[in-house]
């Protein structure tokens, strides 16, 4: 595979098919691009991935923080949580297996606090069994649980990598995006550039941290810690091409089984970030899981931004010149 010289991140139109970010970044004879396929339809919310990641990578504890919203007490991907199991408790108007495509159930209303609006609901303290289990279909409640292990997307066009002013963030030979901790000076630009809200600065340490796709492990031919620990193969690791085929087959199977709401997220090389190296099978709209519905790499507009700034700079120069030449006193 050869690198596409026109496929630089900031060159418009960046929509040109980008197959191999490693080759594009200058790697010669790079191994195949590796990634994650996270199939949320089989996630059981055990959080083994979160624990394994912390163990292997020596990620500090985030402290005990009971968020009081669901079984999720991690809350989000942060500098100290490189895997995050989202836990959605959701009322559904239609019976499970309804042929109509499931609408985004119980939409919250606009406003910063949609917690109280219907999209998610805390079911109270856990009982011995899941809510609604009565042994018969009639007794089923209209709630469902969605669990999803979120992770850095290792974008094909990575905003964090583009804006990093020190070169601390780099593209590995596996096509992943990794921070070099000995280079990062904690400027924080990557934090604001990430369209998924993944990378974060660690308090007290000052540097930016995120998932490395276990760069040390995969370099030695091992599976990343989270995928290794996942008991249901919800997290699958492998060459991205293979994972994409597997994911397409899985979606087809779920559709056949009467789950029309199954859809892939981040698999499309034509999306706003050129496709994700870590993509997902979801059972609802992305924003239900806290994912952006249509992320775009910010640097796609950078040439236009520089042109506008150039225009403003010219206006500034002209205004200053006119101020001195425009009158005697």
């Amino acid at each position: 595979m050869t690198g596409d010289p026109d496929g630089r991140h900031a060159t418009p139109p960046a929509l040109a098919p980008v197959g191999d970010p490693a080759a594009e970044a200058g790697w010669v004879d790079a191994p195949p691009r590796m990634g994650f396929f996270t199939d949320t339809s089989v996630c059981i919310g055990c959080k083994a991935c979160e624990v394994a990641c912390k163990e292997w990578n020596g990620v500090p504890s985030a402290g005990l923080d009971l968020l009081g919203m669901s079984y999720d007490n991690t809350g989000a991907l942060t500098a100290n949580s490189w895997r995050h199991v989202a836990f959605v408790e959701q009322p559904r108007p239609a019976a499970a297996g309804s042929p109509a495509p499931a609408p985004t159930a119980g939409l919250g209303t606009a406003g910063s606090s949609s917690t109280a609006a219907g999209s998610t609901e805390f079911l109270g303290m856990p009982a011995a069994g899941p809510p609604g289990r009565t042994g018969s279909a009639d007794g089923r409640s209209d709630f469902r649980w969605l669990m999803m292990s979120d992770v850095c997307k290792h974008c094909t066009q990575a905003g964090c990598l583009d804006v990093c002013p020190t070169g601390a963030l780099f593209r590995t030979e596996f096509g992943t995006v990794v921070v070099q901790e000995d280079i990062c000076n904690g400027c924080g630009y990557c934090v604001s550039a990430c369209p998924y809200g993944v990378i974060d600065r660690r308090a007290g340490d000052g540097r930016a941290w995120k998932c490395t796709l276990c760069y040390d492990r995969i370099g030695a031919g091992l599976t990343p810690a989270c995928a290794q620990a996942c008991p249901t193969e919800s997290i699958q690791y492998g060459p991205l091409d293979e994972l994409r085929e597997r994911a397409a087959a899985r979606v087809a199977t779920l559709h056949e089984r009467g789950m029309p709401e199954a859809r892939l997220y981040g698999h499309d090389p034509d999306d706003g970030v050129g496709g994700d190296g870590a993509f997902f099978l979801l059972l609802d709209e992305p924003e239900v899981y806290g994912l952006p519905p249509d992320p775009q790499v910010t640097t796609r507009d950078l040439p236009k931004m520089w042109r506008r700034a150039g225009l403003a700079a010219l206006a500034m120069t002209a205004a200053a010149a006119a101020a001195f030449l425009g009158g005697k006193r």
Partner: protein
Amino acid sequence: MPRAEFTSYYGRPVLKPPVWTWEIAAYLFTGGLAAGSSLLAAGGQVTGRPAVRRAGRVAALAAVTASGVLLVKDLGRPERFHHMLRVAKPTSPMSVGTWILTAYGPAAGIAAIAEAARWLPERGPLGLVRRVLPPVGQAAGLAAAATAPALGTYTAVLLADTAVPSWHEAYPYLPFVFAGSALASGAGVGLLAVPPAQAGPARRMAVAGAALELFGAHQVENRLGLVGEPYRTGRAGRLLHAGRALTVAGVAGALLGGRNRVVSAISGAALLAASVATRFGVFRAGVASARDPKYTVLPQRERLAQRRAAEAAEPDR
């Protein structure tokens, strides 16, 4: 903007709010002040207004020094500030800005130091320095002025080149807000420090800067749809409102009472305060937009719907 419904994960933000603190907002001001002051100084230098030149050069050095301190202080690892100099990356506005500052800072510094020539003795080795400094200062002053417009506008790209909705979507207009604010603050220095007899250019610069800034701010507030909202509401809205009022007051004072030393100085101070308020307002609006998931989800939903509609209309594409 119709009230639209949207879903989120327990109302939590999709994006990480910027980790930048007040230092960056303050740098937006000091960087612009340095740029505006260097242009003022160069104008004074070229048109033979020594008081204007001197005030501009001194203010520029003070502002660029403050800028450096603020930028290093905001880093998570301040002792590693020089890692910025490892690379030159056109895809990173912060890297571009680093190199703009690297070119501008020494030029502005030399130009300001050259102003000390008149305090040196006329004889001896220092007498030689006294004779050499002014022409060196002239060259440095022009070099600083040549890089000043880049310094005054790149910060708009710095903010816009992020996933922060209200900063990113404002990219067509933010550079004009910042260019205008930089000019107005430079003019403010002139009005504050220069006798009214020499301050004519500063008054005209204030008018031009205010016009540019008010035009840009109007666009930012009214042409961005939903993501323009953070610029009109909350603390950001109040800051921008105060900035606009101070700008108008400063320009009016300069034009109507500019011949009076006191009125002129107060007008200059108002313009400087206006620039501070505007920069903090723009900064805070972006932070607010990153904290509320509606500014992330709703515009993206709209974009998706438009794309799907276009695809449905043109199935062959």
